[in-house]
């Protein structure tokens, strides 16, 4: 056990921390974080559009007319369907900030370049016709989550080319007396030109390949394999184990692992949303909602059950007090008091369930959905701080089974933590007793 802890502390943690600090990965994470509030607002409308209550649809239609649902879904469209555009903007902005370049100029160039590699073609079938036509227009299918990987690549490419040109000092210098903002807009011209030129050539080049455009090549070579890996049970288990092991060394494992996985997991959320709104079967079990709602109950490591044990079953005064302190934040899925107070960090006893309980929870939740016992998440993005029960209900598009699975996970995790909790509690209890004896 000591050797394992030394491995975590000396080898595992520094590497993971370095990965987490890598500037492109951080820009991707921060850029995606920018889009999350929007997606959550869109989700609110999404839930309202599909409340699974009997008579709800006819009730709404009576009040707001037959087109109530499509009216209600407008905000969903402008949030989810433009995700890739926001990400092209956000990632470039954050990366430019890191390089201390003008973030706004680079972000809009990045959006332009994203559109530059996107074919302005939509397939269109007129009503009554059996032939599909290709018409000109911005394809919303590619500006949503489907275009996310392209957006990320373009954002990084844009910023790097821009930086390269600026570093070479090929900028237009303005004479003194020219207002700084004017000078800035001209300065943005040359590096921006280099970026657009490169991306334009890239598009022309790809046009003559069998892939036809960048979206096709990226989804075949990158998007599909990554989604398969990240969306699998094995991918989810590896992700939680890495996150938990990082927490054992005392650093925020979820922030690091989620940062890497979120582009993949967010795309999977949106695939579910599209299926859900069109009434098709929901394709993906694993996605960012699945992880946040069913594994992070009470915080990383499904510790809400443990917090309850601490309050109800501790003999040690110290642990009882910790439980009282931990239970309120735990309801909102924050568990730093447990991680650092119990502690989980470098604790040879508690780290065993802390790493393994989430693996069980993720597997059980996965199979519950795979067997159809519990509804899959419906692409509704719920804040990770949503309390247990409510989160599961909303994330599955208003299905009771989601709430029940969450409660089941709390009970199961409590049962699995229990033997280890007992050992730790006894140890603490004895320590407290010993101290009292020594004092008297």
């Amino acid at each position, binding site marked *: 056990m000591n050797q394992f802890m030394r491995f975590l502390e000396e080898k595992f943690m520094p590497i993971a921390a370095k990965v987490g600090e890598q500037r492109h990965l951080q820009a991707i994470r*921060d850029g995606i974080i920018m889009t999350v509030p929007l997606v959550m607002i869109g989700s609110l409308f999404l839930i309202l559009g599909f409340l699974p209550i009997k008579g709800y649809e006819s009730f709404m239609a009576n009040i707001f007319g037959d087109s109530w649902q499509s009216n209600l879904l407008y905000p969903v469209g402008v949030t989810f369907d433009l995700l890739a555009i926001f990400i092209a903007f956000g990632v470039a902005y954050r990366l430019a900030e890191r390089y201390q370049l003008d973030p706004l100029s680079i972000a809009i160039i990045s959006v332009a370049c994203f559109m530059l590699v996107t074919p302005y073609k939509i397939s269109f079938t007129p009503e009554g016709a059996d032939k599909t036509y290709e018409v000109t227009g911005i394809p919303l299918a590619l500006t949503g989550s489907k275009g996310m990987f392209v957006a990320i690549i373009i954002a990084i490419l844009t910023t790097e080319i821009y930086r390269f040109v600026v570093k070479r000092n090929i900028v237009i210098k303005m004479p003194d007396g020219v207002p700084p903002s004017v000078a800035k807009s001209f300065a943005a011209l040359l590096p921006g030109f280099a970026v657009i030129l490169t991306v334009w050539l890239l598009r022309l080049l790809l046009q003559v390949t069998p892939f036809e455009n960048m979206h096709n090549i990226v989804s075949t070579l990158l998007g599909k394999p990554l989604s398969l890996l990240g969306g699998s049970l094995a991918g989810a288990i590896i992700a939680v184990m890495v996150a938990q092991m990082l*927490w054992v060394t*005392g650093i*925020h494992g979820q*922030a690091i692992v989620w940062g890497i996985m979120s582009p993949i997991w967010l795309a999977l959320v949106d695939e579910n949303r599209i299926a859900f709104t069109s009434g098709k079967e929901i394709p993906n079990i694993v996605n960012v909602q699945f992880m946040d709602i069913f594994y992070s109950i009470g915080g990383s490591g499904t510790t809400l059950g443990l917090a309850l044990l601490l309050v109800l079953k501790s003999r040690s005064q110290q642990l009882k007090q910790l439980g009282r302190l931990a239970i309120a934040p735990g309801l909102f899925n*924050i568990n*730093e008091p447990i*991680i*650092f107070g119990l*502690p989980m960090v470098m604790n040879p006893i508690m780290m065993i369930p802390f790493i393994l309980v989430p693996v069980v929870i993720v597997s059980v939740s996965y199979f519950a959905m795979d067997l159809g016992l519990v509804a899959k998440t419906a692409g509704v993005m719920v804040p990770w701080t949503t309390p247990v029960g409510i989160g599961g209900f909303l994330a599955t598009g208003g299905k009771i089974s989601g709430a029940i699975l969450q409660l089941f996970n709390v009970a199961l995790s409590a049962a699995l933590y229990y033997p280890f909790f007992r050992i730790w509690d006894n140890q603490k209890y004895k320590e407290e007793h010993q101290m009292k004896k020594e004092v008297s």
Partner: protein
Amino acid sequence: MNILLICAAGMSTSLLVTKMQQAAKEKGLDAIIWAVSADEAKDHLDRADVVLLGPQIRYKLSHFKKEGEARGIPVDVINPADYGRVNGAGVLDFALRLKR
């Protein structure tokens, strides 16, 4: 005395802020204490006299130390045990000692 606390999302640390404010009040100390996420921290550093990091982002210490040195502000990581127990008084003392 302005004490800035930084953690991953700024949420768990905000719990500590409340406890530290109580402790400061009891001491009769005039202190402004607030918590932000690591991403927003940059915009807050200039207003701080002391910067404390949550232990879960201690891998960012060298980054924030550099930022702190440029501004002449002490930066350090909060003791994990004090953090976990939400020991407001203890962390406040730590901040005061750092400032000295």
